[in-house]
């Protein structure tokens, strides 16, 4: 297939913005319905008391904190991957970066709601803000929850900036073609972009700075999320391995989410000529590396606990390896390693479908991993007399479903309002769409610029 002309690229990538099919609206209604149900469930929880959720002593954290860690982890899809690929100057990244960065912004926003949803008195969540108040006290900076508050806000600010910056030239492109109300809206978001050399230069420097700055922030966010657990003297939580283990798991689930999102975009928005097998294959290789790394971390963590033979930790160890949580544990191992490893390691199986199957496994497996870190430890904490158990109620399940629907809906709306593939970046490197462009190949001097 011949490389597309710039005009074709513009037309193809702006097409999703022109009108929506009945299928789009019915999906939107479906997801909207689930979100409304989740809002009702949350309202009921606020009205009746947090007791309508399944959490109980001693398992004070359950689905909500699992979802919190899961979504924050998923948010490492975009900004981190996209920043690393930008800095590495990987040309194949061009069609991938924006759909990755959007996952970050939405997953982070969704994840950040869970610490509020799970509060006993959510209407007082603003007490985490350090503001001079009549109460005369600041928030406690020794608390990892406060570190979370600052880390997540910093990351959200950073990733929103990182998403919006490279959107500016595309916004201007739409502005120049739109009419009516749309023109007014896109004129505002285009921020007066005229495409002068000075503006290009500034955009380039700003993105370079953001790409460098956002990586340590992303790493710090999931380290701090891990410290919510590692700082507490709870068996199998109090571990130095947790920060890198969580960051690895976050990138792992993030890449999986990105592959699923790309496959859906490719199918629904007919982007077969832009999201190519090579992109899935390259991300699949990254996913393979993360799968191996994840397995290594789990193995190292389990081995150290087992060898250390601390009675309280061994209680948690056996309850996950062979006890009541073992079906979930081994399902996690299957989803995170046994399924993805052969699919991604064997070149023949590393197709688009293969990558998607592996990714679905990883997303399920990583959700289970968060659950298995939180619940078995809390339910088997030191004194056997107060061992307990946990079962979610419909409230927690509905709210959890609502956040998945929320993610899907936000993503759908975004893909209909902003070109999900960066048009100007793609035009800058036409060779990147060639079917045969090898990964990380140096840009051939085709004279296209």
């Amino acid at each position, binding site marked *: 297939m011949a490389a597309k002309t710039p005009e074709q690229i513009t037309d193809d990538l702006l097409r999703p913005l022109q009108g929506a099919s009945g299928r789009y609206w019915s999906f939107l209604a479906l997801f909207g319905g689930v979100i409304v149900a989740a809002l009702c469930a949350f309202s009921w929880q606020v009205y009746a008391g947090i007791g309508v959720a399944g959490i109980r002593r001693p398992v004070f954290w359950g689905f909500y904190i699992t979802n919190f860690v899961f979504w924050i982890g998923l948010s490492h899809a975009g900004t981190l991957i996209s920043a690393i690929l930008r800095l590495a100057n990987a040309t194949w990244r061009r069609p991938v970066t924006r759909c990755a960065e959007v996952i970050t912004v939405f997953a982070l926003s969704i994840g950040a709601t869970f610490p509020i949803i799970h509060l006993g*008195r959510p209407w007082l969540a603003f007490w985490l803000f350090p503001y001079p108040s009549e109460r005369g006290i600041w928030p406690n900076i020794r608390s990892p929850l406060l570190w979370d508050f600052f880390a997540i806000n910093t990351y959200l600010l950073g990733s929103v900036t990182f998403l919006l910056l490279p959107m500016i030239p595309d916004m201007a492109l739409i502005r120049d073609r739109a009419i009516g109300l749309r023109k007014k809206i896109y004129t505002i978001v285009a921020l007066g972009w005229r495409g002068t050399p000075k503006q290009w230069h500034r955009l380039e420097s700003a993105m370079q700075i953001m790409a460098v700055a956002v990586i340590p922030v992303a790493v710090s966010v999931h380290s701090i999320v891990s410290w919510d657990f590692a700082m*507490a003297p709870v068996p199998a939580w109090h571990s130095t391995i947790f920060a890198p283990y969580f960051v690895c798991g976050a990138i792992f689930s993030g890449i999986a989410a990105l592959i699923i999102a790309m496959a859906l975009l490719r199918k629904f928005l007919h982007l077969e000529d832009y999201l190519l097998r090579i992109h899935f294959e390259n991300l699949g290789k990254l996913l393979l590396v993360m799968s191996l790394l994840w397995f290594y971390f789990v193995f190292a963590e389990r081995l150290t606990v087992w060898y250390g033979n601390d009675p309280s930790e061994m209680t948690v160890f056996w309850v996950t390896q062979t006890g009541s949580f073992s079906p979930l544990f081994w399902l996690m191992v299957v989803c995170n390693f046994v399924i993805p490893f052969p699919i991604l390691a064997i070149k023949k199986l590393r197709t688009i479908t293969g990558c998607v199957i592996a990714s679905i496994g990883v997303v399920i497996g990583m959700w289970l991993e968060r659950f298995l870190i939180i619940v078995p430890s809390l339910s088997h904490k030191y004194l056997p007399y107060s061992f307990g158990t946990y079962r979610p109620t419909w409230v927690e399940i509905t709210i959890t479903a609502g956040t998945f629907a929320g993610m899907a809906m936000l993503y759908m709306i975004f893909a209909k309002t902003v070109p999900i593939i960066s048009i100007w970046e793609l035009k800058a490197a036409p060779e990147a769409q060639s079917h045969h462009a090898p990964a990380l190949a140096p840009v051939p001097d085709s004279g296209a610029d």
Partner: protein
Amino acid sequence: MPHQWGMVIDLDRCTGCEACVVACHAENNISTVGEDQASRGRAKHWIRVERYFEGEFPDVKTKFMPVLCQQCDAAPCEPVCPTFASYHTIEGLNGQVYNRCIGTRYCANACPYNVRFFNWYNPEWEKPLNLQLNPDVSLREVGVMEKCTFCVQRIKAGEIQAEAEKRAVKDGEIQPACVQSCPTTAMVFGDLSDPDSEVSRLARGNRGIKLLGELGTLPKVTYLQKDSWHGSENA
């Protein structure tokens, strides 16, 4: 020097009668949650009598251990609270300010003793039980963590009384409800900063162990027992 309130519980004297549990409920306005919620693990007992069995039937020995907030000097529950609801008082108590609590429940997860209790719903008292509420103890609303305070209202009352009479607090003058109600005097409460107080004397004895002392939480409750559960070095 401020008082350092502490407690000694003699496990060799404890009969597991749970009078302390009842007294605590009455003194501290601890709401009952009903059968259904209790079966879900939502019951609140600031002090509980843990029951352990040793040996094989028919040679079974039952051991009782009353567990309440250990008022740790290095309390894991305190630093994790983002709003200072859980904090260390000058008298060494683990204070819990209900009004500051937003209900993250982090303190309860961090507590190795599982002695923190959460209000999953607003508390209710069937009439006329509302008339027996202790006016010295505030009620806790939904979404708030609560736990044993060493009957801080009694401590404060005793201190104020002593100050009004321009004297020091006498040893044994202040008693939490559980200590007061113990029929076998298995529990002793007093000032650990006074080396001559009964609680200091007993805590120093070679029968004393700290519950989960290996975690370094520095509990201010000392358990006394002749034959140790935790190894022969305490025998």
